[in-house]
């Protein structure tokens, strides 16, 4: 029984086409017989047929009813409507492509934005129980933070009660020998509790958790596994050779495991190189490290902090040296820190703020796409009025017409949605590859089932938004007016399309205002003086192998490097420096100025540079002199400071000749932390140091031999763009020692143009501006298309009226005013609404702006003029058309 019914259903579906034809023939036969009878009754042939049709009650409606009886009919009706829609669309390829591209852009942008927002902010972290995972630091006076020393962390482990586990990770380099040269990785040297604290299983192999059981093992991060080991699954069990021994790869962590963010691989703390291990053991050193802690279930943040504060206080009493004012702990949820929600993250860099803006922009774009497509469908509905009227006269009900147009719109949205998902997929891939650092967690983001579901929902929504109104309208117009057009209906269509254009212009002007504000901010940021010349400069950070640990050996290596690079053809001059501006690293030193208002918070960043540095970098010497070769290795010493130093630490008093004390904070050196008193001999221009728009911090420069760094930047000034010199530069370094890394996932381990450093700092701002600018431009173009369409329709509609006016002697100006006035009116209305909305919503953008207010009058005025002017321009073509209307033809046309 069930099988029989199923069989009929299937037969019904399959045999549908054949049955359609049979039914058609059968109905024709019936109609003819009916007409024949009427004719015999005395009517003429035409009247007989009409009467037959009348008696028949409309072939179409009746056909539908007959077919609806068949098994599986509703499915088939939909399928047939869709097929019909597809055929209709294939007859109008221009319209179809325009709609699919527009919807695709809207749906694609929205899908990509959803995937990003969901992936970055919504998804749980890879760490299990992330709500109990914190980063702990010591809290000092005025909110200052520092890493606890390793001995202190050991005490924390023993004395606290609120924590399930406490782990410590110290960074050091881990240089792997490869056939292509040394690969520099940064290792996270971790205590055995680390992986348990993070509660994350490895993707491949295993991690380590036994104290000191196996020092020579390494766990790789996902990005290094992919980037440097080609994602090979047999990497587990392989051996990595370094200058200090070999290590066995025991596992690979999943993407998104970025603790700490700089770690390329994890090794047991016992594998730490001896010099670093020595620093680790010092309770007073507070070398940089990450401390991850997991609270016990049920212990809240306040209780955990109280428990830790108690222990930190005890330790400050027991070991008071350098700890008197550091009696508290700070606990930050790892999730907040990763997502930039933690206190202290500048609003500009908070992903939530950036993603919110992007979300708002794509919603606007999607709405514009829908409105645009609704306008296109209305226009097409008008053009198809006769076709629809014929169908309606043949008895297709209003519901049938709407269903049919709806199916067409569903086909369009489906195509647009497919295109959109492809677009989102490609866009996200490019984003993650080209700009991996603009957002946290980008490596984890990807189109998945949830994103596809959202795309599907968006597709349905756009089909409804963009298709329903035009379908209802076209169907009722077809029913109302029958086979003859009526001016009234056309006029109301014109009004409706005008309304859509107003909405489109309003939405577009909001986007363009946002893009304009960001563009002006970017221009302001780019106008800022950098304080150095990035063009025609190239730099490599050299991390010497451990055999150059002694200061004499290191200094000799640096001199040889400088000389070898100077010999490379195309290199003009070469300098050495411990840190470069905009490269991310800095080492602070306390500064004793001896001034009455000096405070123990007086600090500057310590820059250890060779005499060529200011010349090579293009940093101008403002007062006094730069370093000379005589300063290198000299006993007396000399210091150079920047303008910010004079302003902030010396209250703008005469700096030259004044002696100040700084501390020789070069890690790994025996003199680490020893004071150095010397006179200031020069003042140099401020460099933008941490980012392009921030205030330059105070700097103090010393000759590189006075505080010899464990690694060094070699920076070269070149003739012309430095990109072509990179291979020669790499060879020059490798010729000195093949163990010096010239590759690695961290940018400073490669020769890089200095202009890249600047570009990277502006990357996020440029990307955001470019994105919003692109959206704004697309929105503007769509709006102008809308204006063009509605103007052309208006002219077509008023052909007769315009013809009469011309015949009555209207001057061209009058006709132009008629057409352009209409377009201008729409544009002014839309722009006014858009600007009002933009003013109300501009607070959203405020955190991303620089140097201009959120209600920047220049931007607002530009948009207020731009849109009406562009709308008038778009209406020019229809207006010229109107001018050429011949009165005679116009009068005949209706």
């Amino acid at each position: 029984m069930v099988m029989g019914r199923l069989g009929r259903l299937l037969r019904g579906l399959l045999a549908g086409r054949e049955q359609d034809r049979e039914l058609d023939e059968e109905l024709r036969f019936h109609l003819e017989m009916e007409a024949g009878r009427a004719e015999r009754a005395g009517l003429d042939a035409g009247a007989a047929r009409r009467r037959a049709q009348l008696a028949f009650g409309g072939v179409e409606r009746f056909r539908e009813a007959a077919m609806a009886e068949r098994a599986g009919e509703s499915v088939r009706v939909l399928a047939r409507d869709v097929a019909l829609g597809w055929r209709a669309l294939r007859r109008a390829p221009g319209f179809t492509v325009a709609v699919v591209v527009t919807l695709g852009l809207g749906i694609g942008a929205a899908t990509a934005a959803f995937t990003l927002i969901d992936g970055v902010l919504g998804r749980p972290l890879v760490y299990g129980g992330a709500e109990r995972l914190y980063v702990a630091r010591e809290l000092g006076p005025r909110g200052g933070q520092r890493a606890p020393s390793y001995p202190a962390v050991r005490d924390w482990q023993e004395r606290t009660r609120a924590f399930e586990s406490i782990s410590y990770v110290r960074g050091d380099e881990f240089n792997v020998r490869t056939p292509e040269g040394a690969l520099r990785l940064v290792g996270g040297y971790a205590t055995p509790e680390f992986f348990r604290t993070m509660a994350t299983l490895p993707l491949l192999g295993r991690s380590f958790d036994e104290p000191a059981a196996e020092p020579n093992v390494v766990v790789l991060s996902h990005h290094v596994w992919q980037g440097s080991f080609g994602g090979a699954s047999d990497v587990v069990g392989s051996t990595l050779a370094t200058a200090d021994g070999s290590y066995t790869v025991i596992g690979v962590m999943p993407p998104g495991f970025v603790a700490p963010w700089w770690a390329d691989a994890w090794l047991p703390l016992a594998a730490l190189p001896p010099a670093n291990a020595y620093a680790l053991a010092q309770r007073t050193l507070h070398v940089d490290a990450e401390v991850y802690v997991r609270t016990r279930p049920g212990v809240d943040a306040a209780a955990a902090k109280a428990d830790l504060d108690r222990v930190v206080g005890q330790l400050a009493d027991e070991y008071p040296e350098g700890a008197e004012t550091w009696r508290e702990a700070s606990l930050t949820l790892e999730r907040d820190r990763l997502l930039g929600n933690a206190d202290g993250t500048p609003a500009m860099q908070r992903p939530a703020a950036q993603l919110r803006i992007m979300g708002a922009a794509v919603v606007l774009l999607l709405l514009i796409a829908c409105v645009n497509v609704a306008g296109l469908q209305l226009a097409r509905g008008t053009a198809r009025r006769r076709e629809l009227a014929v169908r309606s006269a043949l008895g297709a009900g209003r519901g049938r017409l709407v269903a049919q147009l709806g199916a067409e719109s569903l086909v369009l949205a489906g195509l647009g949605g497919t295109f959109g998902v492809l677009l989102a997929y490609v866009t996200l891939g490019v984003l993650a590859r080209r700009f991996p650092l603009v957002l946290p967690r980008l490596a984890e983001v990807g189109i998945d089932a949830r994103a596809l579901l959202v795309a599907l929902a968006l597709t349905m929504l756009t089909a409804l938004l963009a298709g329903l109104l035009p379908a209802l309208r076209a169907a009722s117009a077809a029913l109302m007016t029958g086979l003859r057009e009526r001016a009234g209906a056309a006029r109301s269509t014109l009004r409706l399309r005008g309304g859509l254009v107003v909405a489109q212009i309003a939405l577009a002007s909001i986007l363009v205002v946002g893009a304009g504000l960001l563009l002006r901010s970017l221009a302001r940021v780019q106008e800022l003086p950098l304080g150095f010349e990035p063009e025609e400069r190239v730099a490599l950070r050299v991390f010497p192998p451990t055999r150059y640990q002694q200061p004499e050996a290191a200094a000799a290596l640096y001199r040889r490097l400088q000389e070898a690079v100077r010999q490379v053809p195309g290199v003009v001059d070469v300098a050495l420096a411990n840190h470069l501006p905009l490269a991310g690293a800095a080492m602070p030193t306390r500064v004793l100025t001896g001034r009455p208002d000096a405070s123990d918070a007086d600090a500057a960043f310590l820059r250890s540079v060779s005499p060529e540095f200011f010349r090579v970098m293009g940093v101008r010497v403002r007062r006094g002199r730069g370093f000379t070769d005589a300063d290198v290795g000299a006993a007396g010493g000399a210091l150079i400071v920047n303008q910010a130093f004079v302003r902030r630490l010396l209250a703008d008093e005469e700096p030259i000749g004044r002696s100040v004390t700084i501390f020789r904070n070069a890690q790994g050196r025996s003199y680490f932390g020893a004071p150095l008193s010397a006179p200031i001999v020069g003042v140099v221009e401020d460099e933008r140091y941490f980012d392009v728009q921030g205030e330059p911090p105070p700097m103090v420069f010393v000759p590189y031999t006075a505080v010899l760094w464990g690694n060094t930047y070699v920076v070269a000034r070149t003739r012309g763009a430095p990109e072509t010199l990179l291979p020669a530069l790499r060879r020059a370094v490798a010729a000195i020692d093949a163990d010096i890394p010239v590759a690695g996932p961290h940018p400073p381990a490669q020769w890089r143009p200095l202009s890249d450093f600047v570009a990277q700092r502006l990357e996020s701002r440029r990307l955001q501006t470019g994105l919003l600018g692109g959206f704004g431009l697309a929105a503007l173009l769509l709006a102008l298309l809308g204006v063009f369409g509605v103007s052309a329709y208006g002219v077509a509609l008023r052909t007769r009226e315009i013809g009469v006016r011309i015949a009555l002697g209207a001057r061209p100006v009058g006709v132009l005013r008629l057409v352009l006035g209409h377009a201008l009116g729409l544009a002014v209305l839309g722009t006014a609404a858009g600007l009002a909305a933009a003013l109300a919503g501009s607070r959203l953008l405020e955190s991303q702006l620089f140097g201009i207010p959120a209600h920047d009058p220049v931007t607002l005025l530009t948009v207020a003029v731009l849109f009406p002017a562009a709308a008038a321009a778009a209406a020019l073509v229809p207006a010229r058309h109107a001018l050429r209307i011949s009165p005679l033809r116009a009068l005949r046309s209706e």
Partner: protein
Amino acid sequence: MSEVLQGTLDLLVLKTLSLEAMHGWGIAQRIEQWSAEALKVGQGSLYPALRRLEGKGWIEAEWRVTENGRRARYYALTRAGRRALGAEVASWRSFSAAVEQILGTT
């Protein structure tokens, strides 16, 4: 002239076809004639009914040529249709008798 009730149309069609195979137009004509033009078969319900009965397996259709040389779709009663007609007639009789009784009592 009143439209044939939806449910009774099936019965009338089966009855008509119990005499001879016939095309759709013929069925409509025959019902109107039999009822002395008191009943009108809305064509909008005739063809759906034919499809419905065909779907139930009570009638079957084949294309034949009419006496005027036109192709037409002829319907004929199946064995199951003949059985169903008996049952339908019986149930119609008891139904109409019940209605008659109610109408008669008031």
